[in-house]
């Protein structure tokens, strides 16, 4: 069976390490970038099954990545995965076309895998 391809965007290396371990072991192929500029370039060049996007990033932040992707009608589905938890941030990214918003500190690794599998199962 074909493996699903994900893009993981986040500059917190220890968190990225745990995520990569779990995602790879859950049968996903994962590209990883640690800044917004590379994230935007990656989604312009590639079609992923899902993008996991942090918001606080060096250089171009996640809000800007999302905004540009939306403006240019980028076909990649973007799930925001961040530790920002203010209601205003959630509403902002949902209005910019994110398919969902998960708060890292509220989400276990298993819950993340379940969420991604459920999303991909629906496609």
């Amino acid at each position: 069976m074909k493996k699903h391809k994900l893009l993981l965007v986040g500059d917190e290396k220890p968190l990225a390490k745990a995520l990569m371990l779990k995602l790879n072991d859950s049968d996903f192929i994962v590209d990883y970038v640690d800044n917004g500029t590379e994230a935007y370039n990656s989604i312009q060049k590639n079609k992923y099954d899902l993008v996991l996007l942090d918001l606080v990033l060096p250089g171009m932040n996640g809000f800007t990545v999302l905004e540009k992707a939306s403006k240019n009608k980028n076909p990649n589905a973007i799930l925001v995965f961040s530790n920002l938890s203010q209601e205003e941030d959630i509403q902002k990214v949902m209005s910019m076309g994110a398919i969902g918003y998960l708060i890292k500190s509220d989400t276990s690794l298993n819950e993340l895998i379940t969420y991604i599998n459920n999303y991909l199962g629906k496609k």
Partner: protein
Amino acid sequence: MNKSQDYLLLLLHQLKTPLTGNKWFLELMLDKDYSVLTAKQKEIINDLAFNNDLMMTLVKDMLTLVNFEKNQGTKLHLEEVDLREVIKAEVTKVTLMLKKKELRINYIGFDKPAILKIDRLKIGLAIQNVINNAIKYSKEDTEIRIEIKQAKDSITLEIQDSGIGIPKSEAPNIFGKFYRSSNAIKNETEGSGLGLYLTRKIVLMHKGDIWFESRENFGTIFYIKFNLH
């Protein structure tokens, strides 16, 4: 703008990163696909994870409180909302928590609109704290009653759980900053003691009223009353 509040907000937000890392690595440690542990080791890792969750709860609650106090200088953003929508939005956020403990929500009085002029975000937060407490202290496979009672001059929200209850002697302190009742601590549930403090503050800002009735080991009912005039 208060500089020390901003530094505190920055620090609290930064703390979430290593705490999240701990949470995930501890989860991997407890996963048999990543490590094989003795029963004693598992117990120790579980205790580590519990303490990490405690720290996380404290950081998150402090963030909420500092954000709230920082923004309190601005007026309430009042708008006409249907209280039912605010409640349902908060319940949606805790769907996973409800599922984990097999808790059911019984909505009563939701058959007609309950229109209020309130700050939707702040009241949402106030209700979220009460619902979170109801879930946290509820026994598994029980019901949480959420009822809206409408009178000529007021709308009262009641949130009832079948949980551990609050000892009578501690009732006067329950809305205090950082206060946690002795049976909450005894039951080892996480909590920072900030949630109800903030809820009461928000309700009073709306010139409303908040009180509760409780019986140890039977449960608690929280009442939030909004005056219509």
